[in-house]
């Protein structure tokens, strides 16, 4: 059965070709059906492969399916091959399963859009690239998928190219979605830079790029704490921070919300942004050999989780809140990976895909009903108007807040428990506080959107979304409830099936990891109770504040206005990048050179370096005087330098 894997990858691509080439002539319905069924059939095949795998004994579950010999140049030989194993099939199921639901939802959401067929073509292309990413059996093919999903993300963020969007205080009113798309693309290239260099170093060290060979050789010959391995893993992690929006490269994800909501759900919540987590988990052996990198991964993860959660507290844009929440949850996943709980990290990828996709799709339904209004201060009382959306959204919020027995509880708790037992108490405490913040901002969102007074003008007539949109919501809600049952920890009498399933993948890495001191069951129960408590407390305070005492919010905001301002401006990260990198240089430069040059495109660090480069560029081009003799002069100078090097050795 596993040899059918090539169909899995090919089907979405065929869908892309059909819609991309002939889509213009298709009716909406036909485009939608083609696009969705391409992913749906893929999902069905993936499920069959999965069950086939279940039947096999553990050691026979991993297969490499070679499609063709891709590159053979001297010492460099790479096959286009897919690795079907426990980890990749799990990711495939998530990508195609959640992807299929989002495709179906999009039929309703994109109804009436003039680029309907284009949208489905891009979505199919994205699924194709994502499958290449997760199924690749070598770094190069993975990188191909990695770049490909970035390209699709870029195309889809800028899908409504001329739409203005609010960057949240920074350069308001100037930016359009195409700027957001470009920002996302360029920030990701910084991460890719790390990935590429790491790939070169791996090739130099091992002479191959195939996962199996690299990992087995690394495991056999590299000592723990090797310097080269430290740099390789660190550079790979730089790639991961770009794709998975971690500190310091997270700035693109909030802006990426400018794209259509199904895109936010599929790419910027459920699948593409978890590619970094998947990549680190796939390279778990390499990370196990570089404890210092693991430490960095954990610290960056927990820091991102905390800071993103605090930024989420005060946002008013429904999608922005979810974006910060995604960044924060991705931080949890990296915390899990960083403390060596690879299976827990992947488990959280799965549950997060369910409830975050659900939250985004619910938000999409709300935005649809409110005629493109995204400010939750202008919503409220939608509970009665759109009951199905409300109920499913509520379930997802409970899941992310970590209320048992919903899926989020098990995965988050597993990470926190491992952070405590294999990491440090500090990780646990910060993670625990973040859990409380998460519950708080999620229920602030629920309260302001669905409950309380109606704060919208009554020329709007919000109504429940059509069936084609609500059915995916309901399926995702069911998954958000039961999804965690595959990972019930031993302490609660479960088998932790997912950890067992993934065990062969991480076996080699676990060999190199110092097994943590195992705290007793009592501690585990205690921590569990603590995290449930903080979740409930967060929910309670959010509801109390926003439903019963709205004036208290005002008072709190004024008395803590400095903190509020800090959070509202997202710790001024964009501005800090701007001030430290840009202003000192720009000050002295000729303003005229900026005219006609679109420097306002990318903000944050990208803007900083872009402005810096642009400034250097406009200065450097002046060497080109236009007069021939100056050219000849430079030529002669070059000759003198080169002959100097050659003769003086």
């Amino acid at each position, binding site marked *: 059965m596993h040899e059918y894997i090539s169909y899995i990858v090919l089907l979405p691509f065929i869908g892309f070709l059909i819609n991309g080439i002939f889509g213009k002539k298709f009716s909406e319905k036909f485009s939608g059906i083609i696009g969705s069924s391409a992913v749906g059939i893929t999902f069905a095949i993936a499920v069959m492969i999965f069950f086939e795998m279940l039947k096999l004994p553990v050691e026979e579950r991993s297969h490499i399916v070679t499609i063709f010999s891709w590159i053979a140049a001297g010492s460099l030989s790479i096959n286009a091959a897919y690795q079907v194993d426990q980890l990749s099939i799990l990711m495939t199921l998530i990508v195609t399963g959640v992807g299929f639901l989002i495709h179906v939802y999009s039929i309703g959401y994109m109804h009436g859009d003039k680029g309907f067929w284009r949208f489905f073509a891009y979505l199919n292309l994205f699924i194709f690239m994502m499958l290449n990413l997760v199924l690749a059996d070598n770094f190069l093919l993975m990188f191909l998928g990695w770049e490909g999903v970035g390209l699709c993300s870029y195309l889809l963020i800028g899908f409504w190219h001329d739409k203005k969007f609010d960057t949240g205080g920074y350069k308001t009113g100037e930016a359009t979605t195409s700027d957001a798309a470009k920002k996302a693309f360029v920030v990701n290239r910084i991460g890719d830079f790390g990935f590429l260099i790491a790939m070169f170093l791996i090739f130099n060290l091992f002479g191959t790029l195939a996962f199996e060979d690299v990992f087995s050789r690394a495991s056999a010959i590299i000592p723990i704490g090797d310097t080269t391995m430290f740099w390789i893993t660190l550079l790979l992690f730089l790639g991961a921070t770009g794709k998975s929006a971690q500190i310091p490269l997270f700035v693109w994800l909030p802006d990426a919300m400018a794209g259509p909501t199904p895109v936010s759900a599929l790419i910027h919540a459920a699948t593409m942004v978890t590619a970094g987590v998947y990549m680190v988990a796939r390279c778990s052996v390499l990370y196990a050999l570089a404890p210092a990198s693991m430490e960095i991964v954990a610290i960056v993860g927990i820091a991102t989780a905390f800071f993103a959660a605090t930024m989420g507290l005060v946002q008013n844009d429904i999608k922005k809140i979810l974006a910060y929440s995604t960044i924060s949850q991705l931080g949890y996943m990296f915390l899990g990976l960083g403390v060596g709980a690879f299976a827990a990290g992947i488990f959280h990828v799965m549950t997060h895909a369910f409830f975050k996709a659900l939250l985004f799709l619910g938000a999409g339904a709300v935005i649809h009903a409110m005629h493109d209004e995204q400010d939750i201060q202008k919503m409220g009382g939608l509970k009665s108007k759109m009951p199905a959306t409300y109920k499913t959204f509520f379930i997802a919020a409970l899941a992310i807040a970590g209320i048992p027995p919903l899926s989020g509880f098990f995965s988050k708790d597993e990470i926190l428990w491992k952070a405590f037992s294999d990491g440090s108490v500090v990780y646990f405490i910060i993670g625990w506080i973040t859990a409380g913040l998460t519950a708080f901002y999620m229920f602030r969102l629920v309260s302001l959107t669905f409950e309380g007074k109606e704060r919208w003008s009554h020329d709007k007539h919000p109504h429940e979304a059509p069936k084609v949109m609500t059915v995916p919501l309901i399926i995702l809600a069911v998954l958000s409830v039961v999804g965690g049952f595959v990972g019930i920890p031993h302490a609660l009498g479960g088998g932790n099936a997912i950890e067992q399933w993934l065990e062969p993948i991480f076996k080699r890495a676990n060999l190199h990891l110092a097994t943590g001191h195992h705290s007793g069951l009592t501690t585990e129960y205690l921590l569990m109770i603590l995290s449930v408590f903080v979740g409930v407390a967060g929910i309670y305070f959010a509801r109390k504040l926003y439903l019963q005492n709205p004036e208290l919010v005002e008072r709190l905001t004024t008395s803590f206005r400095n903190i509020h301002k800090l959070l509202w401006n997202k710790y001024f990260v964009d501005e800090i990048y701007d001030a430290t990198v840009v202003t000192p240089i720009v000050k002295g430069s000729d303003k005229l050179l900026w005219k006609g040059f679109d420097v306002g495109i990318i903000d944050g660090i990208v803007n900083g370096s872009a402005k810096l480069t642009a400034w250097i560029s406009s200065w450097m081009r002046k060497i080109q005087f236009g007069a021939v*003799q100056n050219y000849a002069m430079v030529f002669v100078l070059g000759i003198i330098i080169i002959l100097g090097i050659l003769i003086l050795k």
Partner: protein
Amino acid sequence: MNFNITDIPLNSYLALSAILFSIGVIGVLTRRNAIVVFMCIELMLNSVNLTLVAFSAFHGNITGQILVFFVMAVAAAEAAVGLAIIIALFRNKMTMNIDEINIMKW
């Protein structure tokens, strides 16, 4: 007095041609008239010819002299093309001063 050309050491020829070459380079860098600049380039090529002939005599093979003939042919072709280019430019701009030929820059 019976004077034999091979009595002059190789290094003298090489030094002379290096000096001529340098004069050509300096001319290219300093003169403003396109035709003079072009003549300086011709001077560079001819100084190389001198080097080639000297080496040819030194090594006792004729490869260098063959190359000299090719260089002269190429230089002639270059001269024809170069003068045509300069004339085309002069028709449009009425100038031969290469300092004034700087519309394209940066």
